[in-house]
């Protein structure tokens, strides 16, 4: 087996174990607990009043905007990680150090400009 993948063997084994553990805990209740379902018990809780309409309706587009913002910024964070882990090594090389530093400053500037644009466009205002 490729030695790069050997550490992932425990991940798979423990992953199966954890799924099994969660299943056992949830199933135990099925056999131990009572099952006397009535309609009154099973209707969704709305402070004691019977629900009059389905809750699954349209919701604010702001949530969608937030999801898109997250996708953009999380992806950029992923680009920063490898650079950050190697940064102290880059700095030891005198010729490459300015490139490593200014390259990231350029990247961060673009990132901040994007954030500023989103802010001024009102993507973060929840009035």
């Amino acid at each position: 087996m490729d030695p790069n993948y050997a550490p992932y063997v425990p991940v798979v084994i423990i992953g199966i174990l954890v799924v099994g553990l969660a299943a056992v805990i949830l199933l135990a209740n099925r056999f131990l607990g009572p099952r006397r379902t009535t309609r009154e018990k099973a209707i969704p809780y709305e402070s004691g009043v019977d629900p009059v309409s389905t809750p699954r309706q349209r919701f604010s587009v702001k949530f969608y905007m937030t999801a898109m913002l997250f996708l953009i910024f999380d992806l950029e964070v992923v680009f920063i990680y490898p650079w950050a882990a190697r940064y102290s090594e880059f700095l030891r090389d005198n010729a490459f150090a300015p490139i490593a530093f200014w390259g990231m400053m350029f990247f961060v500037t673009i990132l901040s400009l994007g954030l500023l644009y989103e802010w001024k466009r009102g993507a973060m205002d929840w009035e």
Partner: protein
Amino acid sequence: MSMGELILWGLVKFVCIVLGWVMLVATVLTLMERKQSAAMQNRVGPNRALIFGKKFPLSAFLGQILADALKVLFKEDYEPVNGNKWLHRIAPALGLIPAMLMWLVIPFGPGPPPGVEGHHWFQMADLNVGIIFIFAIASMSVYGATIGAWASNSAFSLLGGLRTAAQMISYEVTLGLSLVGIFMIYGSVQLNDIIWAQGDMAWGIVTQPLAFVLFMVAAVAETKRAPFDLPEAESELAAGYFTEYSSMRFAVFSLGEFIGIVAVAAIAACVFLGGWQIPWVETPLLADGTVDYGWLTVAQVAIFLVKMVFIIWLQMQIRWTLPRFRYDQLMKLGWVYLLPLAIFNLVITALVMYVLR
């Protein structure tokens, strides 16, 4: 190390770490949370569930924990009408599984120093992606809350689920970005290497104080606790995304949350408080560069657990001290204040390292 040994040690560590420590702390936390809130509000807290009705030290503590466990086990669980039956059933597991998988890469004691080959005895899986694995797994825990909320077919649940999704993804960016400075200074994303590089004194909290504050704020928001408990704000949404959950499914949801709190505390202890490092104490090494395990190792594991408990205590203290945010304040804090501050921290760290090179 052969495949069989790898699997065997993986299982042993799983039993010791996840079942022996993580589940234990999460269970005790369900009680300590109430005791802490009682102490801060000048109440007594739960003290009625005594074992066999006898009063002896810790009787009320153990009795309450046992009573809670038995109660959730023997209660009825039901599916709400017109909900998605199967999604409603698996959603609690989707919350619990990522919380437990996060523990795979957290080192509980000294492993081989960076650059030295050897087996890490206090870590379940020695992955080279390190803390990125934790972020990847932690991102998945948003599914449990959101799917559970959708499957419940309840207005309160749906609103809570939406809020959970928006809040968790908003603060995840800050959570990830606040640690970048740590990666730059200590030159690795593996927790074991980061702890070794911190040494006995130069801990993350000293070199990156702003990152510590950002991380703790984002972590409290990620674990959905006050002042960021908008997803389950009881005065607005009944119980938020688990309004329609009862018995064991509810308990699995809250167990997942409590494990998440302990996991965040473990990461903060590793990254900012030097993990298993004791101040003024050097870890002894053997001639081939590996760690000389002995009684000091026991002390180091103990000090790591103490640091973890300290961070948990800090989180509980925050929870019962600060009032809840309004929703627009919450989103504004995440995107307009914390994220630029995290970027600022990155730039300053890069600049100082560049000037001092």
